Each structure stands twice: as C-alpha cells, then as structure tokens.
C-alpha cells in the first residue's frame, strides 16, 4: 500500500520499484522480494507540513477586537430581549 503525503506538505515520493516492473512476462518467483522499507521513498520538504506560504500573522489587537465585537453582540441581544420582554409583559 502506498501512503501519500498530506495535501499541504511539500513532500514528494517516488514510485515504488515494483510499480515500474513489467509483470506480464516474468514468473512471480522472479520478482524481487518486496521490501516494505523501499515501498516508497518519502522526502520531507524544506517547510513544515503545518506551515503555509504567504499566510499573514494575525495580530493580538485584531483578535481582541473580534472578541470585543462578540461581547458587544451578546450585550445587544440581551438588552433587546429584556426591553422587548418588558413590553410583552405590559401588553398582554
């Protein structure tokens, strides 16, 4: 079984030796013995699998702003709910 590298990696692999052999003319006994260690040759690239090229770093201030925006949305939702509910209580 050939194991393929992760999609975002820069790894390459070579075809296993047995894939290049012509299996139509030779008897099974004449094939080279299968060596699992040589089933594929996996070369790791220069970059780590988890590193993507040209991805900008997200600054802490941007993250804080996003968190603050979320808190504001929560506060708005609770405020609107309470105000609306009070109106419902008085109108029913």
């Amino acid at each position, binding site marked *: 079984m050939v194991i393929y590298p992760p999609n975002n990696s820069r790894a390459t692999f070579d075809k296993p030796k047995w894939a290049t052999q012509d299996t139509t003319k030779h008897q099974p006994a004449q094939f080279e013995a299968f060596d699992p260690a040589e089933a594929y040759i996996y070369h790791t690239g220069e970059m780590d699998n988890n590193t993507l090229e040209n991805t900008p770093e997200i600054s802490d201030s941007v993250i804080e702003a996003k968190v*603050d925006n979320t808190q*504001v949305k929560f506060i708005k939702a609770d405020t*609107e709910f*309470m105000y609306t*509910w009070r109106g419902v209580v008085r109108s*029913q």
Partner: protein
Amino acid sequence: MPTLLQQAMTLLVGDQPKRLSSPQKTTTRPLKKLTDRQLIKLESEIGRTLFGEIPTGRTREFFCLDNDTWIWHEEWKDSNGKEKSQTVRYEIHPNGILKVEDGGKNYNFLKGQELMNLALATRMYRERVMRELYKRDPKTGALLTTEPSTIPQVAHE
C-alpha cells in the same frame, strides 16, 4: 323521614353536592398592571445582587433602562455624612458600548475585561430576572411555573 320516592331519587342521582363558596379570583398575570418604572424597580432588586455583597451604608441599582441603555447607580455617605452618588450609563452604539460617567463629562468605549464583565452581567441579569421575576425561560420566554405566587407586591407610588 324521607319518602320512598326521595330515597329512590337519591339512589339514582346521588347526594346533592354541597354548594361551594365562589372560588377566589386568582391573578395569572400580576405584573400586567405595573408600570415600566415599577417593573424596572423589581428587576433592579435582582440586578443589584449580581456584583456581590453591597457594602453597608450603600444602595445600588443596576437595570436595563431601555433598548439602548443600562444604568448602574450607587448612593452612599462620605466620612462627613454628605450624601454621594454615582451613576454610570452604558449606552449601546453601533460601534460599541459607551460608558458615560459624571453626567457625560467622562466617556469611553468599553473594551477588554471591563467589556467582558458587562457582557457577563447583562447575561446574568437576563437569566435571573426572567427566571426569578417573570418565571419564564430566559431563552424562549416559555412559562416555567403555572402558579406565580411568589411575585412580590409593589407599593404603588
């Protein structure tokens, strides 16, 4: 002594039930008659407890005033016995929550931990006021109990 006919009727239709006194009128929506101000006062009784124990000699109010404003208000007496008070308005604006103090002299948009604290307070307010005052589910508004008998009476002003 009952006649034979009366005895037969009793066997057929049973004893006449005793007439019950007219049932007391129960109010299913006691909060309906209250004004906005009275409802806010009731809500604030819960709101003031969200921030822990109130120091002796201080009074505190915290409530949702309207669709855009929360109010924090405290009163106390200083060492000279002079009455002091502080009111903070949290105004909801499209670009954030504006904290207004000292009658508008100081104002700044909340951020960071203080903003998170207010978000927690408003969420706790909603949870507790809906459950404890209105007896309703804080998410859906569905009734939690059929006998809201613990709703306190408010002295009409």
